[in-house]
């Protein structure tokens, strides 16, 4: 990188100085001997269309960020509770409804059981929360189900956990968005008709925000959670008082789902329990994000987890009790949600508090969807680093976000929403299976963790996780069984399929790594193979001459190959060649079937076969002259044969393809490179 030197005068004659240009400066920075760091300009576009695209990208996603600009912020407990709990707490907005939608199939008396089911789910939540507290303490660097299973169980179990988590994150986006939209059309019923469009736009906006490198640590993200929690607690409190004082009356619901005639058997109860267990989704988020807490990280995370579980349990049971007290039933498709009916009954259908509650519910649900946009790409990046997903998933985009993961998550979630018509209840059966698979594997991993560590109190710690593991396994079996025909079968098929795909990818990468590996004691020696160069030519022109010059700089054995289908031109081409390109032999091949690539490749094969068998095969360079087109439409006109030839030669053994582009800006350089051109200039000067 040697720059030009510009002389400058000084105040005195002897004070001349020379300014040395620094051509690397706009693009690179030296940081050590032979070590450069690229600046943003080095990755910048060079063409006008590229610059336009970069400007549009800049407006949409923001300017590219350097690695050092990554913000690592520690969260206090209050902020962390709001940010990590939105997924779990928001599930209280639809969990009660899912229980009621099952129980409504039986008689009115069955609806009363909803409270017992909610309490049972809350107890399960308590067990899961206590188990996850242990993970917070054991894995201060973040104990996602994949990390725990990988370290303690390993092999397929960790991949099952990863597959279940990936499905869980996709479902969180789909279910939360669907529910958020449902809260919206509970207030503005006319929006029901365009719910899919709204959902897709909402996902697109969240995607763009995340591609811009959205940070969840901002105060703005704590507002919806605390607003929802505050209003929901007020609603539950006021509702409970009215029930206790006898002020609660059954509300009129013309669009309520008609009560069924099924008997309240064990299957129905289990199905209601399985539906309501979606309340537990998102419980693991805090254990995954322990490093984001302020020190002491583990203790703060464990305490925050307890606070979250308590809040979720109060809200879930409270909403169920109030819904029961006011005789609220789920509505038919397109009607108000159960939580909206509860709010309407307690606050009044047109009160500002009702609208505020509905807005906060929609907001916390969108926030819950957003949490997956953080978790899914990170897990995909981890899997990519371990070789189980394509490497692109571990690459960070311009804004330091894992763009591939974000876009994939958005695409699948939007497709799911469209496929399930934006119906929360239809999506729920797909949700719970993945969640309980991750719970069970995390707890199982923790049992092995304690057994291996054998630290103080390991036995009772292992017992807690064992109870959690057994309980979540039982629930998993129940959920998978009773919800199987409703859609859980899709997840039961999808998890092993994903595991198989991940194993396939890992084996592919492992094989290519084996093939590319060199022994540590290997030292590259000088080249011992012979080289020859073939230049396919369409005649004589500047691009061909330039390619031949490049060919001559590679090896002495250079042959130009002219393939023709018009014999009348051959003699003149040969005569011109011998006159204008002396010293380079021209091989002419007649192609009566008018093919170009086929005869050339056949000629290369013949050359290979003719090579003496006692000598190592030579490397054949195929130097292809190309005319550089300036605009997109010119690209259609030129180099089609060259492109086809290059594709066909790709992967041919012992063959290297070299493209020699001829640019329109090159004529001057071409003339200067002409032998005798310099002499000509000298004489004229």
């Amino acid at each position: 990188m040697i720059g030009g030197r510009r002389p400058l005068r000084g105040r005195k004659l002897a004070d001349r100085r020379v300014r040395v240009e620094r051509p690397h400066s706009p693009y690179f920075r030296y940081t050590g001997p032979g070590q450069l760091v690229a600046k943003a300009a080095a990755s910048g576009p060079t063409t006008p269309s590229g610059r336009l695209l970069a400007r549009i990208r800049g407006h949409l996603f923001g300017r590219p960020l350097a690695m050092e600009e990554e913000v690592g912020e520690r969260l206090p407990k209050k902020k962390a509770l709001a940010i990590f709990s939105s997924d779990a707490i928001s599930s209280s907005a639809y969990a009660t409804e899912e229980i009621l939608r099952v129980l409504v199939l039986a008689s009115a008396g069955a609806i009363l059981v909803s409270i017992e089911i909610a309490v049972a789910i809350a107890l399960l939540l308590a067990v899961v929360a206590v188990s996850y507290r242990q993970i917070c303490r054991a894995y201060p660097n973040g104990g996602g189900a994949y990390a725990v299973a990988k370290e303690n169980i390993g092999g397929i179990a960790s991949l099952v956990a990863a597959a279940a988590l990936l499905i869980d994150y996709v479902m969180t986006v789909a279910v939360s968005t669907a529910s958020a939209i449902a809260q919206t059309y509970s207030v503005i019923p006319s929006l029901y008709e365009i719910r899919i469009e709204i959902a897709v736009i909402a996902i697109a906006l969240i995607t763009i925000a995340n591609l811009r490198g959205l940070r969840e640590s901002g105060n703005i993200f704590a507002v919806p959670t605390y607003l929802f929690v505050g209003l929901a607690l007020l609603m539950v409190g006021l509702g409970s008082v009215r029930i206790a004082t006898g002020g609660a009356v059954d509300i009129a619901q013309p669009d309520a789902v008609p009560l069924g005639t099924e008997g309240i058997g064990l299957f129905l109860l289990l199905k209601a329990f399985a539906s309501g267990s979606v309340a537990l989704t998102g419980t693991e988020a805090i254990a995954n994000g322990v490093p984001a807490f302020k020190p002491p990280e583990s203790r703060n995370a464990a305490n925050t987890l307890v606070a979250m579980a308590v809040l979720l349990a109060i809200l879930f049971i409270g909403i169920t009790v109030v819904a029961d007290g006011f005789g609220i039933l789920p509505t038919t498709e397109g009607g108000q949600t159960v939580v909206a009916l509860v709010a309407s009954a307690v606050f009044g259908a047109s009160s500002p508090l009702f609208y505020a509650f509905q807005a906060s519910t929609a907001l916390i649900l969108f926030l819950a969807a957003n949490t997956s946009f953080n978790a899914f790409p990170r897990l995909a990046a981890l899997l990519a680093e371990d070789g189980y997903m394509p490497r692109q998933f571990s690459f960070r985009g311009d804004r330091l976000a894992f763009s591939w993961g974000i876009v994939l998550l958005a695409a699948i979630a939007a497709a799911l929403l469209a496929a399930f018509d934006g119906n929360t209840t239809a999506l729920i059966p797909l949700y719970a299976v993945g969640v309980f698979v991750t719970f069970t594997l995390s707890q199982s991993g923790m049992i092995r963790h304690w057994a291996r560590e054998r630290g103080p109190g390991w036995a009772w710690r292992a017992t807690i996780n064992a109870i959690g593991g057994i309980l979540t396994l039982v629930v998993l079996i129940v959920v998978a069984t009773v919800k199987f025909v409703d859609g859980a079968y899709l997840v039961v098929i999808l998890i092993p399929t994903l595991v198989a795909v991940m194993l396939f990818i890992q084996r592919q990468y492992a094989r290519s790594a084996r093939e590319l590996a060199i022994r540590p004691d290997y030292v590259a020696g000088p080249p011992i193979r012979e080289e020859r160069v073939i230049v396919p030519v369409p005649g004589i022109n500047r691009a061909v001459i330039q390619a031949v010059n490049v060919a001559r700089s590679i090896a002495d054995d250079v042959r130009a190959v002219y393939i023709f289908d018009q014999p009348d031109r051959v003699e003149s081409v040969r005569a011109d060649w011998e006159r204008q390109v002396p010293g380079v032999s021209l091989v002419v091949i007649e192609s009566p079937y008018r093919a170009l690539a086929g005869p050339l490749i056949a000629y290369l094969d013949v050359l290979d076969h003719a090579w003496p068998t006692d000598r190592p095969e030579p490397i054949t360079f195929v130097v292809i002259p190309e005319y550089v087109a300036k605009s997109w439409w010119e690209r259609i006109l030129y180099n089609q044969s060259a492109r086809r030839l290059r594709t066909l030669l790709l992967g041919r053994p012992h063959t290297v393809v070299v493209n020699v582009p001829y640019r329109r800006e090159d004529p001057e350089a071409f003339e200067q490179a002409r032998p005798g051109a310099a002499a000509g200039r000298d004489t004229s000067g």
Partner: protein
Amino acid sequence: MSESHTPVFRRAVVALAGEPGDERIVRLVSELARPIHGELAAVHVVEVGWSLPLDADIAGRSEEVQRILDNAESVAEESKVRLESVLLQARDVGAALVDEATERQADLLVLGLPYRKRFGGDFAIGRTIPYVLKNAPCAVWVVREPIPEDQP
């Protein structure tokens, strides 16, 4: 100018000697330039002996010389200040700095005064600083390197 006033300048030329103290000087001037949107030029002069032509290919080839200016750019960037880096070859460092400051119509020229531990320790004032102080067309700051604690 009283000591409590923030010095005001529009254009400053910062002389880089390739010493460890360069970073401190660039940081100091950058912090002062940021609120007033001052323009900064960091100049490193490679002295060329009379036995070689002045435009001999010396500085451009040296990664070490480039690194001196790249580091300065990096420090200024951290302070969110734009800094133009200038690499010069000259017979005399002082004259080149003065000429560069004159050409750029700089109103401040900043130089570092390094501390040498050899021979009992002293400030190496050399001949550049006196020349600049005498001939610069603008204000000159000489930023003294702190005396190491282990020195008497």
